[in-house]
């Protein structure tokens, strides 16, 4: 009896790091990039709705956003490229939203006159779309 406990205890000690490593991977997909602290997901959602992203894009979490002019933005965080030309990093996405013509002069996506912060908020929302706020765990 006592032996068994010791053996289980030893095994557990061996398995603990592995178990922890597995657990830490749970609940978030490895490819979801981290959001910078400065961006506000909630504000990003409101902005996306107001400035009109949804008239061209389908965006989860915004019911009125079902445009088919541009690509749907579901799972944007997992995509490799933005607009087929930019590697998908948070900063690149924010820069693209702020001024598409800087990267693709002939893009039909308009320059909406957003500030850098506003573009970052929208990017943050798109990265966390339809799920929970990655930072606070709140639903929005």
């Amino acid at each position, binding site marked *: 009896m006592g032996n068994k406990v010791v053996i289980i205890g030893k095994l557990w000690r061996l398995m603990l790091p592995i178990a922890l490593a597995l657990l830490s991977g749970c609940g978030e997909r490895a490819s979801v990039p981290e959001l910078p602290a400065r961006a506000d997901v909630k504000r990003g959602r409101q902005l996306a709705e107001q400035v*009109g992203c949804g008239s061209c894009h389908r965006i989860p979490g915004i019911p009125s956003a079902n445009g088919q002019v541009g690509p749907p933005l579901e799972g944007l965080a997992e995509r490799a490229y933005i607009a087929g030309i930019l590697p998908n990093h948070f900063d690149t996405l924010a820069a693209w939203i702020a001024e598409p013509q800087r990267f693709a002069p002939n893009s039909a996506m308009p320059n909406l006159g957003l500030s850098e912060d506003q573009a970052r908020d929208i990017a943050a929302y798109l990265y966390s779309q339809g799920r929970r706020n990655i930072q606070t765990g709140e639903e929005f």
Partner: protein
Amino acid sequence: MIVKRNAHTGNRMSCGLGSLLSCVMASTARAQNEQTVFEPVSDHAEGIVWLWWAMFWVGAVIFLAVMLLLAVGLWRARRPNSGLGESASRNLVIAAGVAIPLVILLTLVGGSLMLGRSIAADPPPNVMRVRVTGWMWWWQVDYLDQDGKVIASTANEIHVPVGRPVEVQLISADVIHSFWVPQLHGKTDVMPGQLNSTWFTAEKAGVYRGQCAEFCGVQHALMAFLVIAEAETDFRRWLERQAAPAEMPENPRARFGLEVFLDRGCASCHTVRGTDAQGNIGPDLTHLASRRTLAAVTIPNTRGHLGGWISDPHSVKEGVFMPRTLLEPEELTALTVYLETLE
């Protein structure tokens, strides 16, 4: 401001049978700029909501009285030989089944007729006239002078001066619609081939949402408009601006946008006064940029929405008669820049 339904849905969801009253009360305290009959801003709308509450309370009292009688009946029925005598039964039926309902119904009918009469009365002589034409699925708004000549045309937005009576002459260009601004007046049908009219005086400045109240096709639910009541001076300034033709844009990109507008089909349906665009089956766009919304209060009037709306109106408002425009990206950009100059 546009389609904020969350608070409203929340109210509705919390409505159980037992909390009907509190639900009705709660819905009277809704956010600004939503459609409601409970916050009237004209005499007509006040009369209507007064009658509504009167009917509600009378109905509530009758309901409670009937339930009480039922409970008493059930209670008494447990005892043998508990029925009322013949004459008492007859009296009860005559009183509660005929006399009281007759009095109540006649009173309510009388109230309705009196209210209807006061609403249908001719407007006072200093009335301002606006002609509103219902189209599937938007509203053409023409301001008329004393002789009935059109001063200015716009769409989906009716500005009125606070405190001045406004007569709205209604006609339909296609099917039957109904014109309704719950905070200002009762529904008035909009018929093809027949001029109907209604009038109201907005007593308080504000933005009041209205919508079509007669099912008229696939986008009936997105056939809304705004009534903007403002001070007389602001209104005059607005009307003067709306009456003026569009200015020729200075900016070369906007000029290119105007060319796009004229050459790529927009002008076949839309008018921009002061240009060759004289189409008359879509909204007048002479001062499009001054409007708050697009597509009959479906989306806010911002560059992003405007671009999406022009590129593919159907994903915003399925079934709308405006076709997709497959413009080159630079044409689309120039066109939105041009449209934004139409203030």
